[in-house]
């Protein structure tokens, strides 16, 4: 068995290498792809938590993404909030909306839950489009200010360049992954997995499954809000198209093909499906068509995605225990 210190070595080395990447990769274009990947990793973690770990298909991640983006943008533009408080508020908004939607809908059947979360996203888009006094509707919100970080002894530093954003998002992603990993290893994480594996059994063991599902959903809302806020301040322009179902489809492909219910699988999925489109310069519709085929193939043949496939191969080579 690998000791915990040694197990942390590989991810730590990867994080360190990642932090040094901008020294090597000067291309703004490449850095942009990487920053978008990082934002998507956080959003993919949101879906991963509710689908991969709690076992509930939710079509609400774009809603939390959009709500986080608009919350953060409006606080920055209308009230002059700095980045970190705006991010925190976006996270809180995601959490609260998820809780509000979750309370009535998680007690419904799974099928109804899917459709209610879908409806929530559609209604959120309608609100963003039509509540023009607040959101400027289809014209969107331009000019969202980038973060200004207070560095001791140097003073405020504006994160304007791609390299700066890359490092900032790297910090956010690492924090999100660490928090996610801690959650999964905790008692709550164990309860969430129990609910996914067998809800009836979980209740017989004293686990308050409704509360566990609500917590998982609320936390997934929080992650979505964080991703939305980062996106808003990075791209500096948002509009109601953030809520398009198209983004949900992309997210599902990242999470399912990467490996729902795993960490590195989802990170890999987000990376692959942000980088590949840039390498594969084909018509977006053709690309989406191919994605659809990949998703269908994965769901039918390799439901665990890339990570599941790797795990199965590793297990096939490991010795089996003696049956009783």
């Amino acid at each position, binding site marked *: 068995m690998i000791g915990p210190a040694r197990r942390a070595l590989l991810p730590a080395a990867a994080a360190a290498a990642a932090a040094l990447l901008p020294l090597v990769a000067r291309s703004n274009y490449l850095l942009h792809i990487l920053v978008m990947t990082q934002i998507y990793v956080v959003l993919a973690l949101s879906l991963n938590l509710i*689908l991969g770990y709690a*076992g509930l*298909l939710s079509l609400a991640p774009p809603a939390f993404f959009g709500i986080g983006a608009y919350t953060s943008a409006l606080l920055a533009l209308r009230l002059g909030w700095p980045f970190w408080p705006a991010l925190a508020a976006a996270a809180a908004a995601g959490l609260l909306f998820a809780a509000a939607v979750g309370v*009535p*809908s998680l*007690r*419904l*059947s*799974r*099928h*109804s839950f*899917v*459709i*209610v979360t*879908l*409806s929530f996203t*559609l*209604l959120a888009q*309608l609100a963003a489009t*039509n509540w023009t006094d607040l959101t400027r509707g289809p014209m969107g919100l331009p000019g969202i200010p980038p973060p200004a970080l207070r560095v001791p002894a140097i003073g405020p530093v504006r994160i304007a360049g791609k390299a700066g954003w890359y490092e900032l998002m790297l910090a956010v992603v690492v924090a999100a992954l660490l928090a996610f990993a801690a959650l999964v290893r905790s008692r709550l994480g164990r309860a969430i997995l129990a609910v996914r594996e067998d809800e009836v059994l979980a209740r017989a063991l004293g686990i308050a499954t409704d509360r566990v599902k609500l917590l998982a959903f609320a936390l997934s809302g929080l992650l979505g809000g964080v991703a939305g806020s980062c996106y808003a301040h990075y791209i500096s322009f948002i509009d109601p198209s953030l809520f398009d*179902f198209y983004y949900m*489809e992309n997210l*599902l492909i990242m999470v*399912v093909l990467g490996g729902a219910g795993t960490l590195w699988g989802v990170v890999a999925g987000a990376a692959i499906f942000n980088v590949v489109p840039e390498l594969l310069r084909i*018509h977006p*519709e*053709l690309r*989406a*068509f191919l*994605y*659809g*085929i990949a*998703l*269908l193939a994965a*769901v*039918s043949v390799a*439901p665990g995605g890339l990570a599941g496939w790797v795990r199965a191969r590793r297990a096939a080579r490991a010795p089996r225990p003696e049956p009783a």
Partner: protein
Amino acid sequence: MLAQHIVNGLVQGALYALVAVGLTLVYGILEVINFAHGELYMLGAFALYLLFAWAHLPYGPALLLTVLALAGVGHLLARATMVPHLRRPFESTVLATLAASIILQNGARVAFTATPRQANPPLEDVVVRLGDVVVTGQRLLALGAALLAFAALHLFIRRTRAGKAMRAAAQSKDACAMVGIDVGRVAARAVALGGGLCGLAGAVVAPLYDIFPGIGTMAVFKSFAVVIMGGLGNVPGAMAAAALLGVGESLAGGYVSTTAKDAFGFTLMILVLLVRPQGLFGRRVRV
């Protein structure tokens, strides 16, 4: 004015019903939500366009061929995405049908581009007046076709063996297995039936609006609302809920605002679920 709104709403409701009935029928049998259902409607509209406006077939035969073609597509869809997942958790099927939706919608985009098309069938310019109410011929045709289709569906389910097999499968898959009814085949037939109905819907609606690859998305989302409100698996319930949605949207659009019209369906659905999770007419499977 009110009567006009109501009539418009009922026509729209009939169209929603045409699309939703297939969806709820499949749910009743397989307990899965077919996310590709809207694409069946979209393909129906495109099929009619190709046959009528491009190949210049007369409207009647074009309509008939569309219905048959979409029944076939529905059957294939079921075989590819639903039957293999019969024994798997439902999320698996939802993802499979969602994948099919992506494939079909983007395939259509690649094949036809996003440019909206129009089909101009013979009844388009005919206008019928009933008192203060004005209805175009095409809309009346749509309403009539829908009612005929429902009558035919009712007869099919009640009188034919295949229809009875569907009712049996909707009540108990295990019992079907025991008496030798192949649930997979029944399910494929149900999806084919739904496909045919969607094809009909696409064919009669196509001339009313623009035809482009994205029309399936909102159609299926609205159908979800109808199916949930009517009670999952409840065919008469879906019809009633569709009428309610159509009329409600029409009134909301006429008296409140376009936003109210767009939001009406989903808001109503959520309210219904809060008060009666099994839908307005009960979830008990009824075909």
